[in-house]
């Protein structure tokens, strides 16, 4: 019997993976079709792989229309125009450093035996033999920093929760991933859900937490279903529930759905949402590590932060720390989106340049037109121009350049982009998603959008440009959280790098339809 692998990642399915799988199953009845996550080369999806004695052979991108003649080649892994060879040998994969995404796309996501056979559970087993404080120390020693955007050292956060004496503590996984350009959390939850659970179980052992929560945005129904199923498998296998892996300690894990609010990615807003409340940002202090969910000590970490932990426990802090540069240790799963020829997930040690990612891996724009700008780190991140692409992607270097890494998403634009429209959109997005708690954000976003619209209509351009700058300063300095505080980042970077897009002549007499 031949084994044929077809991804069931939602991105792969969005371009026909289910139809391809069904087509193969119908016409090669002897084949065993194995559904896996995606390896992350989304430009090659649906990517089909055939098992051979020498390893897997990939074909892609396969459309249902390719099937008739591809089916002759598949059983013998024979020649075909779509044949890519062994996926590991493709430069796009060979040049990556897959630590967190080592298994994604290779194993069936809900096959616990396959997970273990590919190195899974080694970290949790190691943690079960350690004191909580020692686990915190190992994570601190690895240099791991939060992948959700702020880059806070994870070991310090865990140690703080570990040191609290409270009858109940929580581990909350932030899977709200609202940033445009970012989809690594989604891919990991769909493609290797046990890894996230393992990381959360280690966090529970480290901090003494008994309650676990995964807050997943409702825009990700496939990830919600997959994580829910994976929790059941782990419960049945004894890795979750009343007795975590024979430790005698409870760890009860469940999924909570978001409801379409970007601000619920902000940790205190997320905690309110898990409590069943409006997702309004809480004032700090207290920090969640001291008084978080239901006022109890709480670890809040991003999906990728938690998913990096099992390897640190399995291979040691030094192994992980050896990747990266300076205070940005380890690897980051970067995701390319927008107008890019070869979009997908690229896991690389910190320090890789944006140019290597966009031009090297990404192959430039999808349209073939000249590159104009990229937005780094989601809707609150800065736009950068071509000259800035040689910046190393690490927390400090980007901050120094007035940009940020955010959650590792990179959105590419060609020369047809209207940066005036993008600046306007940044304000509009803040207007739509503001939680409404503080005035600079709530009112500033609306005023900002209106003022940019005036500029784009050519009304008092110089005076209105000054007004936008003033508003941005007010929002940056006066907002309670980074929603209002960072919206100036995309606006001002667009304004400074591409002033020609704002230098509009007054519109002729005809009414300019406001959008």
């Amino acid at each position: 019997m031949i084994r044929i692998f077809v991804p069931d990642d939602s991105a792969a399915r969005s371009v026909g993976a289910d139809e391809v799988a069904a087509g193969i199953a119908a016409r090669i009845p002897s084949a065993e079709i194995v559904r896996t996550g995606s390896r992350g080369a989304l430009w090659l999806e649906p990517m089909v792989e055939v098992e051979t004695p020498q390893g897997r052979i990939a074909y892609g991108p396969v459309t249902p229309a390719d099937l008739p003649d591809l089916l002759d080649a598949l059983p013998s892994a024979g020649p075909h125009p779509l044949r890519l060879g062994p996926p590991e040998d493709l430069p796009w994969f060979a040049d990556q450093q897959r630590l967190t995404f080592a298994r994604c796309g290779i194993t069936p996501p809900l096959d616990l035996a396959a997970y273990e056979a590919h190195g899974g559970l080694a970290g949790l087993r190691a943690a079960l033999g350690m004191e909580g404080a020692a686990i915190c120390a190992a994570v601190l020693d690895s240099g791991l920093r939060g992948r959700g955007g702020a880059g806070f050292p994870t070991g310090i956060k865990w140690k703080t929760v570990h040191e609290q004496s409270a009858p109940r503590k929580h581990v909350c996984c932030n899977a709200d991933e609202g940033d445009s350009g970012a989809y690594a959390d989604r891919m990991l939850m769909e493609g290797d859900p046990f890894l996230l659970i393992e990381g959360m179980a280690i966090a529970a052992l480290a901090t003494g937490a008994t309650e676990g929560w995964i807050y997943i945005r409702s825009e990700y129904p496939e990830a919600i279903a997959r994580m829910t199923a994976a929790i059941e498998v782990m419960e049945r296998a004894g890795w979750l529930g009343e007795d975590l892996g024979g430790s005698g300690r409870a760890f009860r894990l469940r999924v909570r759905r978001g409801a379409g609010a970007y601000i619920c990615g902000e940790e205190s807003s997320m905690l309110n949402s898990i409590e069943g409340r409006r997702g309004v940002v809480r004032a700090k202090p207290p920090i969640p590590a001291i008084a978080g969910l239901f006022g109890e000590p709480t670890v809040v970490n991003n999906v990728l932060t938690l998913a990096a932990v099992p390897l640190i426990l399995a291979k040691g802090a030094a192994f992980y720390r050896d990747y990266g540069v300076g205070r940005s240790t380890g690897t980051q799963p970067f995701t390319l989106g927008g107008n890019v020829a070869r979009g997908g997930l690229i896991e690389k040690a910190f320090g890789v340049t944006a140019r290597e990612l966009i031009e090297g891996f990404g192959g430039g724009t999808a349209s073939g037109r000249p590159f104009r700008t990229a937005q780094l780190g989601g809707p609150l991140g800065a736009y950068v121009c071509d000259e800035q692409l040689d910046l190393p992607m690490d927390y400090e270097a980007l901050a120094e350049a007035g940009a940020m890494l955010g959650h590792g998403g990179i959105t590419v634009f060609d020369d047809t982009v209207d940066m005036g429209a993008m600046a306007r959109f940044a304000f509009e997005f803040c207007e739509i998603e503001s939680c409404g708690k503080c005035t600079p954000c709530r009112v500033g976003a609306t005023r900002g959008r209106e003022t940019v619209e005036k500029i784009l209509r050519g009304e008092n351009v110089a005076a209105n440009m000054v007004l936008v700058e003033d508003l941005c300063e007010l929002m940056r300095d006066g907002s309670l959280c980074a929603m209002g505080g960072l919206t100036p980042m995309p606006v001002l970077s667009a304004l400074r790098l591409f002033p020609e897009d704002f230098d509009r002549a007054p519109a002729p007499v005809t009414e300019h339809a406001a959008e």
Partner: protein
Amino acid sequence: MPNPARPPLEGASAAREICARHGDDPAALIEILHDLQEAEGHVPPDAVPEIALALNLGRAEVHGVLTFYHDFRQAPEGRVELQLCRGESCQAMGAEALIAAVCARRGAALGETSADGVTIKPVYCLGNCALAPAARVDGRLIGRASAERLDAALDAALSEPAR
């Protein structure tokens, strides 16, 4: 989307049943609203006092949560839900033009329901940014969306038997 497996219940009794399933836990309010909306197609007005009662919350509190989140709706919508992504990655691949084209073809603006029953909604990133522009038709994710592909998906969804 209504759940085909369960017959629609009247708002208040559906709300009571769903709250009970969640142990009348006030922290489960958002899950409860999701479940109710899945069962009924929207959160009916007569459900709010029932939920407040069951969870021991004020009506204003339940109403506040219901209106805070973009997902929840208080009135029925079209038979088919079309979510069109307006995130930056999708904009970089022509999302705004696609939205204009789809709205023109359906004769309904963003946020409205067309005469043939398609509710068109904006969404801000579907996690499919490498295969932009992205959309969902009744929950089904579509990458590299074009007006033609969406038309085909919408027509297929509309021709499915009514639920």
